[in-house]
C-alpha cells in the first residue's frame, strides 16, 4: 500500500508562496512509479482583482489548522475511495502573505489513466475550497483590506 493510502493526517500548510520548483520536484518524484500514466495538477494563483478601484496586492492566509487537517484527511480518504485507480494525491496550501502572481494552492493527483486523476483533482479542489476553514485577507494597493470569501 502506498504512502498516500495510509490516510494519516498530513500537514498541507506551507508558510509563504508555493514555488514553481516545488511543483517540478513533486512531478520528478513520480518517475519511478511505473504504473502512473497521468498526472493532473491544479494551481491557484493570487489574482490582482480590482476592488472599488484598488488592486489586490496580496492575500494574507490564516487557518484553523487542526480542523482544516481533519477535514483534509476525510477528503483524502473519500477521494481514494471514489477513485481507486489514483496512486497519489498531494495537497498544499499557503499561509501568510502571498503576493499577486504567486501560487497559494496545489492539488496534484496521479493515476494509471487520465479520467481518474482529472476527476479527483476537480473534486478535491472544490472540496478544499468549500470545507477547509482557511481565511484570506485581501490587502489592497491603498493598504486597506477586505476579507475574501469563496462563492
Amino acid at each position: 500500500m502506498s504512502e498516500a493510502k495510509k490516510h494519516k493526517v498530513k500537514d498541507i500548510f506551507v508558510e509563504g508562496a508555493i514555488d514553481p520548483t516545488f511543483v517540478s520536484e513533486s512531478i520528478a518524484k513520480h518517475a519511478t512509479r511505473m504504473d502512473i500514466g497521468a498526472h493532473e495538477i491544479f494551481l491557484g494563483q493570487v489574482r490582482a482583482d480590482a476592488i472599488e478601484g484598488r488592486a489586490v496586492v496580496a492575500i494574507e492566509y490564516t487557518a484553523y489548522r487542526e480542523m482544516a487537517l481533519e477535514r483534509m484527511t476525510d477528503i483524502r480518504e473519500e477521494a481514494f475511495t471514489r477513485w481507486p485507480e489514483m496512486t497519489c494525491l498531494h495537497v498544499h496550501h499557503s499561509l501568510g502573505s502571498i503576493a499577486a502572481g504567486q501560487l497559494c494552492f496545489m492539488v496534484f493527483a496521479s493515476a494509471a489513466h487520465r479520467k481518474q486523476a482529472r476527476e479527483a483533482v476537480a473534486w478535491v479542489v472544490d472540496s478544499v475550497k468549500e470545507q477547509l476553514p482557511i481565511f484570506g485577507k485581501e490587502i489592497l494597493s491603498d493598504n486597506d483590506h477586505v476579507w475574501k470569501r469563496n462563492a
Partner: protein
Amino acid sequence: MKVLLFGLIAEKAGSDHMEIPATSTADLDRQLQDRIRGLKGLSYSIAIDRTIVHGDRALSGSEEIAVLPPFAGG
C-alpha cells in the same frame, strides 16, 4: 470556556480567542453578539470539536469551540 476566533471575527474582536461561559450554542451566539461589535450582521458558523454544527446545541464546557467566518481557501 475558550472560544477560538478567526479571520474577520478575530479582527472585529481584537483577539483570536475569548473566554465565554456558555451553556449552549444559542447562549454562545448571544454572548458573542454582546461582546463583538458588528458581529450580528456577519455570516459565521460555529464549530464544536472541529465540526460545524447547525441549530442549538448544549455545551458541557469541555468542547473545542470555534467561530468561523466564510472560508476563502484556494
